C-alpha cells in the first residue's frame, strides 16, 4: 500500500512532465502530418498577443476595485454582522468557521490576496488544524471568479452578462459552503 505522499510524488512528477510531453506530442504529430509549423505558430502567437492587450483596461479597473474593497475594512464589519446572525439562529457552535470568511470573500476577487489570507490562517492556527484544513479545501475548490469573468468577457467585448454572474456566484457559494461542511465532517471539533 503506497502512502499518500508517495502517490502525491507520482502525481507531481506527472504534472511536471505534462506540459513538455503535450508540446512534444503536438510537434511530432504536426511533423507527421506535414503541417507548416512556423506559419501556424506565428498566426497563433499574433492572436494571443492581441488578446493580452485587449484585456488590459478591464484588468486595471478590476484590480482597483479589489484594492479599495480590501483597504476599506468592510470584511470585519461583514464578519461581525454574520456572527451576530449565527448566534441568533442557534449556530453559535459553528462561529469558528467565521475565521474563514476573509478567504471566502477574497478568493473570488484576487488569487494573490487569497494566498495571503490562506498563509495567515496557516500561521495563526497551523495548516493541520480545523481552520487550516478547511481553508485549504476552500482555496482549492473555488476560483478567482471576478477576475476570470472580467478578462474573458472583456476580451470579446461583451457588456451584457445575462445570467453568467449569478450562475458563477451560486457555484462559488456552493463551493464555499461545501468546503465548510466537509471541513466540519472531516476535521471538526477535535
Amino acid at each position: 500500500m503506497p502512502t499518500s505522499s508517495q502517490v502525491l510524488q507520482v502525481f507531481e512528477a506527472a504534472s511536471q512532465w505534462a506540459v513538455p510531453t503535450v508540446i512534444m506530442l503536438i510537434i511530432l504529430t504536426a511533423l507527421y502530418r506535414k503541417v507548416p509549423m512556423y506559419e501556424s505558430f506565428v498566426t497563433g502567437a499574433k492572436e494571443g498577443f492581441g488578446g493580452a492587450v485587449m484585456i488590459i483596461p478591464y484588468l486595471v479597473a478590476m484590480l482597483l476595485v479589489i484594492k479599495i474593497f480590501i483597504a476599506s475594512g468592510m470584511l470585519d464589519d461583514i464578519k461581525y454582522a454574520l456572527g451576530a446572525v449565527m448566534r441568533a439562529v442557534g449556530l453559535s457552535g459553528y462561529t469558528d468557521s467565521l475565521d474563514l470568511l476573509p478567504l471566502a470573500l477574497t478568493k473570488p476577487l484576487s488569487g494573490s490576496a487569497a494566498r495571503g489570507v490562506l498563509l495567515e490562517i496557516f500561521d495563526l492556527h497551523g495548516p493541520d488544524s480545523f481552520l487550516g484544513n478547511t481553508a485549504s479545501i476552500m482555496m482549492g475548490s473555488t476560483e478567482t471568479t471576478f477576475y476570470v469573468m472580467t478578462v474573458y468577457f472583456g476580451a470579446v467585448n461583451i457588456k451584457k452578462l445575462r445570467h453568467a454572474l449569478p450562475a458563477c456566484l451560486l457555484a462559488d457559494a456552493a463551493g464555499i459552503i461545501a468546503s465548510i461542511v466537509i471541513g466540519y465532517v472531516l476535521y471538526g471539533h477535535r
Partner: protein
Amino acid sequence: MNVAQDAGLIDALSRLLRPVMRLLFPELPDNHPAQGAILMNLSANMLGLDNAATPLGLKAMRELQELNPVKDTATNSMATFLAINTAGLTVIPFTIIGYRVLRGSHDPAATVTGTWLASIVSVSVAVIASRWLSKLPQFRIPHSEVAVAAVAGDSRTNMEDNR
C-alpha cells in the same frame, strides 16, 4: 495550440469527449472549434496550469463569440463555460499542497479528497444554475435584438439561437 489544431489533435480530443460536451453545451454545433478550445482550457485548469489556461480560455471565448447573434450579450454557452471554469475544477491542488508543506504541515495532501468533493459540488451547481437561470424571463435575450442582428447580416452566426 494553433499548431495542435492544424495537426488535427484538438479535433481528435473533441471527438472523444463529444457526448460530454453535447450534454454541457447543447447549443454548440458539432465539430465547431469552440469545443476544442473549451476542452483545452478545462484540461489546463484541471492540471492546475493557471497560466496556460487563460490564453486557451480567451481563444474559447473568441470562438463562442463567432456563434453569438447579439455581439454585446453573453450566450448560454458562454455562461455555462464561465460557470464551470470559475467553479474551480482541480485534479491535484499543487499550489495549496506547496503552501502547506511550506508552513510545516504533517500531512500536506490530506485535504485533496475534501477538495475533490467540494469541487464536485460547485461544478454541479455551476452546470445546473447556468441551465436553470438561462430560462428565467429576466435573463432571456430580447427577440427584437436577435432579429436586428440577423437583418444586419449576421445570419451566419444565428444558428446558436435557432437550435
